[in-house]
């Protein structure tokens, strides 16, 4: 863009809105083009360019952390603490990125997580698991996740209930069911091996963090390099056009909700290992945290455009923020006052920097 005035005047009277196109991303793909030989480089550049604001925001946070808390912040241990915290909500957010990119939303992630955690730690499950292998617990959690996702997906696809309402209903029901199953008690895990697996270290880093990394990488590949990802973008961007182009929009939508269900189940397992408990209170308000991370990352809430890298940054920004706050001993109220301000600043930064990038 040779003149900055152009884009500005174009949407001079257009406020940001959920369903509207968003400026920062308009030209991201374009820079991604180029020769095969320079692909890797340009890929890296695109990744940074598109997320420049997020990178800067995260770096700023780290600088603040290092300044105010010194070595207490800038240590490997602390970094791992941040990553461990990010892992659970991160896995959920990756799933959420898909659903939102596909034009939907899932408010029931926290409740599905809770139900999974409860069901895989019931006495019955644990008895079987003890007799056989802890993998049984993982299987139960996954089945619950898939089941809930299936119900969400079918209601939305075939019942034509709007996603917000369908998953809100699931939120209420799944948590209610979790409470009924657990009798509102915290269920303690006694199966040996289960916890050991998730908290074991590989190259000095816990398995659950590796798991997060793995889910993120798989998520990135699926969204950007597979037909499934392409279809997700199509379904989210213009479902009618996708349908007329021969994509089975309904089935794909169901798959998306199942996918997020699976992510919730994985997160549930991680949380169960981390707390050695299953409980109906696990994952409270995860829906808001996950959506916030996804949207801050740059995925369009109206669907049709999603970024896994952005989501990972979004999650890291939120968790680092909490960490810096904890290290700095701010009052809780001040923290939430500041949190609001920081969110806005991060988004504005992201916008300005992305605009700059795209105009170069």
């Amino acid at each position, binding site marked *: 863009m040779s003149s900055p005035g152009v884009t500005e005047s174009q949407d001079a009277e257009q406020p940001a809105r959920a369903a509207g196109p968003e400026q920062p991303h308009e030209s991201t793909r374009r820079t991604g083009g180029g020769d095969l030989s320079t692909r890797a480089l340009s890929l890296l550049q695109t990744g940074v360019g598109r997320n420049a604001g997020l990178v800067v925001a995260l770096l700023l946070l780290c600088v603040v952390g290092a300044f105010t808390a010194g070595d*207490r912040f800038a*240590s490997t*241990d*602390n970094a791992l*603490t*941040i990553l*461990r*915290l990010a892992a*659970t*909500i991160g896995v959920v957010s990756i799933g959420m990125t898909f659903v939102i990119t596909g034009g939907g939303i899932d408010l029931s992630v926290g409740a599905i997580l809770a139900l999974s955690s409860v069901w895989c730690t019931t006495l019955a499950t644990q008895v079987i698991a003890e007799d056989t292998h802890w993998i049984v617990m993982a299987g139960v959690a996954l089945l619950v996740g898939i089941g809930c996702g299936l119900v969400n997906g079918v209601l939305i696809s075939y019942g034509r209930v709007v996603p917000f309402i369908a998953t809100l209903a699931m939120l209420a029901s799944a948590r209610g069911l979790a*409470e009924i199953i657990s009798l*509102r*008690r*915290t269920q*303690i895990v006694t199966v040996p091996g289960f*916890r050991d697996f998730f908290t074991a270290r590989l190259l000095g880093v816990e398995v659950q963090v590796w798991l997060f990394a793995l889910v993120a990488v798989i998520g990135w590949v699926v969204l950007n390099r597979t037909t499934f990802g392409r279809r997700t973008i199509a379904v989210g961007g213009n479902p009618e056009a996708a349908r007329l182009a021969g994509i089975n929009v309904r089935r794909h939508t169901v798959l998306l909700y199942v996918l997020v269900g699976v992510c919730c189940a994985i997160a549930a397992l991680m*949380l169960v290992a*981390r*707390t*050695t*408990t299953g*409980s*109906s*209170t*696990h*994952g*409270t*308000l*995860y829906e808001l945290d996950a959506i916030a991370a996804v949207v801050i990352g740059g995925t369009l809430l109206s669907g049709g455009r999603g970024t896994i890298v952005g989501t990972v940054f979004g999650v890291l920004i939120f*968790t680092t923020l*909490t*960490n810096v*706050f*904890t*290290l700095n*001993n701010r*009052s*809780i109220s001040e*923290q*939430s006052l500041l949190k609001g301000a920081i969110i806005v600043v991060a988004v504005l930064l992201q916008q300005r920097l992305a605009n700059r990038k795209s105009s170069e």
Partner: protein
Amino acid sequence: ACTSNTPSTENEDASGQQAQNVVANDEPGDEVVIGFSAPAADHGWMGSITTSAKKAAEQYSDVDLRVAEGTNDVNLQISQVETFINDGVDAIVLLPFDGAAMTPVAMKAMEAGIPVINVDREFDDPNAARVTVLGDNYGMGVSAGTYICSQLEGQSDAVVAEIAGIDSLPLTQDRSQGFEDALKSCGLDVDNRVAADFTVEGGERAASNLLQAAPKIDAIWNHDDDQGVGVLAAIQNANRDEFFMVGGAGSANAMRSIKEGGSVLQATVIYPSTQAADGIKLARLLAQEKALGDLVEVEVPREVQLYAPVVTKENVDQFLPTAFES
């Protein structure tokens, strides 16, 4: 009229009194860094927990208190404790959102040589804490139940209602269990039960519906005085006064109202909001390797369980000074 808008004077009194019982242990010692984490301060009692913990720490020039963001997400709370461990604090005072879920990380802290003082909600492994300061949730239910039994003596068909707090918390389960058991011993049971969420608004909403559900009531136990403000407002709105009410937790508001009389609120069962403050004090002693002054023991004991007394018009003056403003 009672208002919390004039807290300054009363509060000064309260802390002034705390400051009075200075003992030898309060002499400054080595600098102690204490990490503190509690659930979200989304209701008055929990808010007062943090406030009184801070106030306790401010009394000592040798205590550096680090307060983490209050949260109801165990995942986040775990990471806060992990941060404290990385940080190498001298002691951790922990009021867990869910005791069982915080056990592994507390254990980790203990293994790292950091004493953990467990407040209010118990871990499921005794080795995860050096000291446990326990309110008595079951005992609270028993106290309330026993008091109601004594007031309703002989009326075996009396209608008793219960307004619980957040129903999915273990502590609510314990309180309700204690209440039920105590009532049973005098042949009563809970006829109507609703749960609120420890907030004024939730109390008002739950009580409004409850009063419709039960046209005639003899006694109500409300788990929490903070939501009790809303419950009383609902009772006033409904113009009902055929029953008496027992509160819970013991806020200053509730006590002043009891003292004044004339309201359905006759009594409240104390659930000390100073638990965490006690936790801070104990943490400091542990870190400085001191003992409890009034005991013969050379070590701080493993468990301190607080008492849940019933406050009525007769003894309210005794408790009012330490009550929390909500």
